């Protein structure tokens, strides 16, 4: 599908969608939304690129190797954050009790482990949605 209007529109819109997705991921601990919603928005922008241009352009934007590293890395980051809490003397996934810096409530860098975990889950969700889409489209390849 090669449509001039969708191409130009999506070229205009995609950066804003991506920034919005990142914003929602980063403010997950402050406002409604969070890793899944933000990651889904970010992933949707990648799907939009693939739909309005063609598959190769989309694949170039997030190559398969990088996607699988991001996917695994997001999940591993989550698990490691939990393990760090044990190493610091708390329980698995402990936050304040394990001594993660809490920061000032309401500021961007606050809420300790939750901020880190949200970031990792956001990465994981965004890359998973993109790869799922590509796998369904490409199928056998």
């Amino acid at each position, binding site marked *: 599908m090669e449509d001039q209007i969708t191409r130009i529109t999506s070229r205009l819109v995609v950066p804003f969608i991506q920034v919005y997705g990142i914003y929602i991921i980063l403010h997950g601990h402050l406002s409604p939304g969070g890793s899944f919603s933000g990651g889904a928005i970010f992933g949707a922008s990648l799907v939009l690129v693939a739909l309005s241009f063609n598959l190769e352009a989309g694949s170039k934007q997030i190559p398969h190797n990088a996607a*699988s590293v991001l996917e*695994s890395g997001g999940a591993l980051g989550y*698990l490691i954050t*939990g393990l760090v809490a044990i190493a610091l003397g708390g*329980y698995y996934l*402990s*936050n304040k*009790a*394990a001594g993660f810096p809490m920061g000032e409530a309401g500021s961007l860098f606050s809420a300790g482990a939750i901020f880190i975990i949200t970031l990792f889950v956001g990465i994981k969700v965004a890359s998973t949605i993109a790869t799922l889409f590509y796998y369904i489209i490409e199928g056998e390849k």
Partner: protein
Amino acid sequence: MGFSEHFPALIVVVLFFTAFISPLLYRWARKLAAPAVIAALLAALAMVVVLLIQVQQFGIYYYHMGGWPPPWGIEFKADPLRLYILVVLISVSLWIFIYALRDLGHELKTRVIGWYYTLYSVLVGSMAGIALTNDLFNLFVLMEICAISACAIISIKEDRECLEASFKYLILSAMGTGCFLLGVVMLYMVTGYLNYSFLYQALVEAFDFYPLNIFTAAALFIVAFGTKAALFPLHVWLPDAHASAPSPSSAMLSGLVIKIYAFALFLMFYEVFPRVVLEAVPLSEIVLWLAALGAMFGSIYAMIQTDLKKMLAYSSIAQIAYIFMGIGLHHSLALVGGFYHIMVHAVTKAMLFMVAGVIIYSTGVRRIDQLTGIGKVLPVTMVAFTIGSASMVGIPGTGGLISKWYLALSALEIGRPIFVLVILASSLLNAIYYMPIVINAFMHQDEFKKEVKPVPGIMQLSMVVGMVFIIIFGFFSKPVVTLLEQAAALFF
């Protein structure tokens, strides 16, 4: 307790960790991928054993995720029964994995084997979580993870039957989890808790005011877990799914996955719903009669099958019924029998599916009537099949006898001899469809005509290990039975 206090969480974490690292390893350091999974399973097994020893010394132990105490946080519980299930789960899955190392290359494309390791670890990890968790919503999430990964290890072999079977399985298990979540909502509505222990207490009080909610929840739970554990007549997905899957997946699904849901239903009946609820409606009775029907009909269906793996799959329906019978009879000896059967059947059915896998690997035969005379060309395999079928029938000297013995004993003790008859009849039916295969394999004068590929050593070794364990379960049942008796005593 030192570092070991974190073990309940770490058992699950280590398996998920390997799950996510193995696609990376498979891409860049292919030789390390399989050893990583084996190492994770060994580590998990070691942790479970340490926990079991500690729990027997110091009593039941609770682990609070993130340090949040219940009812707010997620709680993991380590008691002897759950740890016993975990020992069975992890050791059997380790054994199947070692078998799978050779068989997978034959049944799958090389490209997807790394993903198979991921799915396998996720499956084992989620099942470990189901056994350990003490929180209904956590159970829901783990059940969905388990359902997806269980479907995926079927559909990873991309032929038509596998895809269709796993779609059927996925739809029915999605129905199961939908029902389960609705039941959870019903319970949350009237109590405000999701933690088993809190629910158990709150439901006693809530039962006076909102009995309908609680009955609905109980009914939904029976449908949910019945579907997932293939309780007759909700078993329709099982034969296709278990028969078409690659052999290691069949061994895993038939050996472990359906049992973990039976165990979850047990937890609902004994740790979530208080006695008043179970006495007000005959929930156990329903499960008991469905199980009795399943034990008969599963075997009858198995008799008319022509495909070896399909026959084994139908036999699983009959065998899971014994476990449900153990739950439904409501007696401590029945629990011992049912839980002993979880272990025995996990090993036996996994071994029988391995045998089927070996037969397919080396001769390509799936039909039962083409197996005549195969005992002379694949002796170890067919001896394993013989011992496995003996254990299914319950011949003395095999593990199958012990569990049936305890079930029958408890049925007599509570004065319901009809279930002894059911067990006997079902064993007889088992003999009717297992024994002809054995007899034809060894004593038929016809030669086996097909070409035979040599069986790899590691596959033979896995089958030998299975045989040895089945016989050990038959002769040295004492330690396990003592453990189970102690554990069952907590509920009566």
